[in-house]
């Protein structure tokens, strides 16, 4: 009796182990079925020509389905910004640009830009939950926890290429001003 029970247990364990391995592979397959498709991932880079931009005007570009804010700064806007804020500027030729993913870091709404308040702490206002940002897209009022993120970019002549990390981006990363950590507004 006990011999046959042991035999049964062994069969049960062997069956269970095989089923578990199969189950893990099946789960892996199901997980992969929900991953972003290669065509979605390869949607790749967006090139923006900024040579004809006007100062203190918000330009919204689309990159990987996300809105990218690009604003050329005036001298007054630059003077009013903090050191951290200035370090986030993308310099193309002689002009300084604010470039960031235009999604509130609270829950992903798109903040509105107010050119009249470009030198104040409320240059951007997110209407969803009332968060504000200064001109460099650094958060100045809760509930936003972080600055709006700088996307990977590369400066090529008079254009900004979004989706490729150039030396300027790497420098911002080394300085820790991309927006993944809190910054001084």
């Amino acid at each position, binding site marked *: 009796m006990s011999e046959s029970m042991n035999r049964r247990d062994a069969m049960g364990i062997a069956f269970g182990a095989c089923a578990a391995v199969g189950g893990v592979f099946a789960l892996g397959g199901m*997980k992969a079925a*929900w*991953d*972003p*498709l290669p065509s*979605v991932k390869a949607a790749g880079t967006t090139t923006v020509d900024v040579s004809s931009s006007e100062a203190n005007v918000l330009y*919204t570009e*689309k990159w*990987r*389905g*996300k*809105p990218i804010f690009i604003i050329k700064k005036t001298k007054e806007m630059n003077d009013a910004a903090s050191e951290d804020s200035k370090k986030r500027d993308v310099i193309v030729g002689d002009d300084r640009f604010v470039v960031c993913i235009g999604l509130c*870091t*609270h*829950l*992903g*709404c*798109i903040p509105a830009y107010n050119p009249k308040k470009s030198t104040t702490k409320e240059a951007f206002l997110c*209407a*969803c*939950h*009332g968060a504000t940002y200064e001109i460099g897209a650094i958060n100045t009022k*809760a*509930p*936003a*926890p972080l600055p709006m993120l700088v996307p990977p970019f590369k400066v090529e002549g008079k254009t900004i290429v979004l989706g490729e990390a150039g030396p300027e981006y790497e420098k911002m990363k080394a300085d820790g001003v991309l927006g*993944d950590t809190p910054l001084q507004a």
Partner: protein
Amino acid sequence: MAHFDKNAKPFSEQWLQDRLAVKTLRRVLAEEYWIPKDINFLWAMGMILAVTFGLLLVSGIFLLMYYKPDVALAFDSVNYTIMQEVGFGWLFRHIHGVAASVVFLIIYIHMFTGIYYGSYKQGREMIWISGMLLFVTFSAEAFSGYMLPWGQMSYWAGMVITNLFSAGSLELNGVVEWIRGDYVPGDAFLTRFFMLHVLLLPLAILGIIVLHFGSLRIPHVNNQEGAEIDFDAEAEKYLAGKTKEAKVIRFQFDFLSKDIMVLAWFLILFFYLVFYHFGFAMDPVNFDPADGLKTPAHIYPEWYFLWSYEILRPFPKDPGLIAFAFAQVIFVLLPFLDRSPNAIPAHKRGKPFFIWFWLLLIDMIILTAMGKLPPEGIFSTIGLWAAWGFIILWVALPFITKNEKVK
């Protein structure tokens, strides 16, 4: 072969009994499923929910025949094809939309009835837990369905809710992108939520409904006084003809006849809403097609999610998410947080629990109202206090019930 009546006519009752045990099933599940006499109209909410779910299922089947789960086609397939071309398409949509909203009102009444009468403990824990599982699956079903018309509110609610899965400062963006199948809600997102809405979640709901009904069969339905009834003894009295003396009635058709009367009142209200006041279930913002580059001025969920939304909103990001997660799971734990052995109505349990019950109900109504208003000035402050109130009430529950006198 077991005993069976060779002379029974095909498909007669005896013939079916020999093959499918239909008489036994009817006896066990209906004719000798005993319901206490001492109940009121609130005991009809379960049947109303079952019927409303049926309405959702049938209207959903008709919508399914013309709906197109594609970001380029979804909006028009709902707002043009179904609303203007399909015969009675507008009716199916309005039944579906109104039922999806009203079903939550009844769920909340059903839940608070359970809390008030103590119908979640002393043998009835699984009824409560399976019921809360239904609340969770219904919430997921409502949310996934809200994505389908692919209007502005669909898109932005999808954005905000899926972002919650990045778990705040943990920045789990990979998880969010995995759920969406894209960097932002797009075609992959819409189609998979369509699948969830029309197949996986309804299947889960049907299964849990069976579990919920099953969990009721052994401990039986509670009664107005929380009295412990010997169902076997009372059933015997009833079957012996002493129906007046017995404290119980049959489910079929004694209880059902009462149930159906309450149901009829409900359906009058329901179809009044469907035909004359469907607007409350149709947000005007969602009649603008989804636009990923334009956030609506104010994003808010449907009314039934407002209370938990308002628990998320007044806090900074991480504490807000923790408070939100707390609000989502805490109701499930009610049978274990209530430390009192008394399974009787709130008004018989003494002041502390009675006050707790009404404070919780009022607090959730305040949270609901504040969740709809813009997060500014005095509303922000009231919302913050109400959110704290909710948390404090639940943390206090084990302490105020622990010292309750045994009645």
